[in-house]
């Protein structure tokens, strides 16, 4: 099919526009797609023009399969990890990475594959001991101050009232009172430490 805009080149991008629930289909060549205004998705147009490899990768995802694209796939395969000399072609062939750096080198290329395999591309599990301790410290460094705690409880109280959950609201009210009482007590015992009193636990 010829590109509906230039009517010269073969159309290789199918672009579906939905306006007011009505879908219209456009068949464009990559050259015209680049020049077209895609409305709020103008970012898309620039994708066809950007530097290697993301633009090419995306165009591959969009299903470009002309001679030029085959050539680009060849270029992609010859991308080489500087640390272990594994090329993207090697990886495609035997599904093996050569070193930890491959993950950064081929970062953009594997994201889809990972999502396909694992349904996710982000680790949420166990971390090395050093890093886990670091993360723990980060959290411990910023405990809620009593004022923040009070603000949090107040907003929860309001939420509960709005939802007419008076039982929960009463609990929050009591918790706020207890917190205020504690703050007053601490302030009277040791005025200079009043703010930090609740953080020691």
């Amino acid at each position, binding site marked *: 099919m010829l590109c509906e805009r230039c009517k010269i080149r073969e159309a290789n991008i199918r672009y579906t526009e939905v306006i007011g629930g009505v879908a219209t289909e456009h068949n464009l060549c990559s050259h015209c797609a680049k020049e077209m205004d895609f409305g709020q998705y103008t970012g898309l147009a620039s994708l066809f023009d950007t530097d290697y490899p993301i633009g090419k990768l995306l165009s591959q995802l969009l299903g470009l399969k002309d001679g030029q694209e085959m050539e680009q796939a060849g270029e992609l395969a010859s991308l080489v990890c500087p640390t272990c000399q594994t090329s993207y072609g090697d990886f495609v062939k035997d599904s093996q990475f050569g070193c*930890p750096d491959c993950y950064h080198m081929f970062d953009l290329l594997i994201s889809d594959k*990972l999502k396909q395999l694992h349904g996710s591309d982000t680790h949420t599990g166990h971390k*090395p001991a050093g890093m886990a301790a670091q993360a723990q410290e980060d959290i411990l460094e910023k405990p809620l101050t009593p004022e923040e705690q009070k603000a949090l409880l107040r907003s929860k109280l309001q939420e509960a009232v709005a939802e007419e959950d008076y039982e929960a609201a009463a609990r929050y009210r009591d918790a706020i009172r207890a917190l205020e009482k504690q703050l007053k007590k601490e302030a009277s015992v040791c005025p200079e430490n009043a703010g930090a009193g609740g953080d020691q636990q």
Partner: protein
Amino acid sequence: MTKWYEETDQMHDVFVMKRLRLVRNLAGHIFPSRLRGAERLSMLSELEEDFVPMETEEGQPYTYCRLDELEENSRNALYERRIINYSRVEDGEPSGLLLSPDEALGLVLNGEDHLRLQYLSGTQSLENMLARLMRLEETLGEKAPFAFDEKYGYLTTFLTNVGTGLRASVVVHLPMLSNGSQFRKLVQEYSRFGISVKGLSGDSNENYGGLFEVKNQKTLGQTEEELIGLVSQAATQLAAQERKVKSLALRSHRLQLEDEIYKSYGVLKYARKLTYKEGMTYLSQLRMGLCENLVQAEIPVNIFGIMLNIRPANLKQARAQDLEGEALDEARARYIQAHLPKLQ
């Protein structure tokens, strides 16, 4: 020392065996699968320096051997007992194995990844096993930092292991359920939840002995605890189904079941030769009989241990000779007779 698969204190239950495997690589090092010749050998030396010798938490030493220096049959026997994977049998590249005396904990050095930790058990819960394996992992990580990325987690040779590097599996014995016409469909359903259920032995078309392995397919995007929870849940569901089918069958066809089990015992006890398929099929029947208390053994027996030991490479290793064809089947029948307890 008694191997984990010879322990007889395990219940004769649907759950046969549990396995956890963790893959780790050293930070700043090329993965072993990309190293050849001298480079791969020097990588192994570095790993040996870091991790050998090693002791279990109980203070027992792990044995260490170079896998590439073992005979092929010994490697095959380790593979049959699930201690190493098939690539360690095949490629003959320099790699090492640390193995605890009961063969439950294993650490392969310089396989496809720098470290492959494994824990096999018949009785432990996956939760306890994970806790112990993570303790081991932590001690190893103190000796040499692992390749870790904030986004991708632990970095591995294969994308199928990246993230947690954890593969958890439960082997369940489903002799009744797997005979059902809907079983294949049921099994396929699990893949939607990232769980694979596959026959444990035999080729892809035929599975001997009604043993199925339930394991996680995904390693990234879920925590270790979530992954073992998922596997546990799927295995428990299958086990519950099996028990349901069994109790139905017992109500309606008790005599027929008992007859099959006693016949199986008779064949195992008196056959002069047994193929692997025959051995597995009859042992599976007997195991079910013991599970359901349809027969009682005079002394406790771990049928799964026998199932592991009648595989070809292990039989050859036990007899210290190369056996083929009929000689192998004869050795198998003899092994089973020697290890089968009398019935009460």
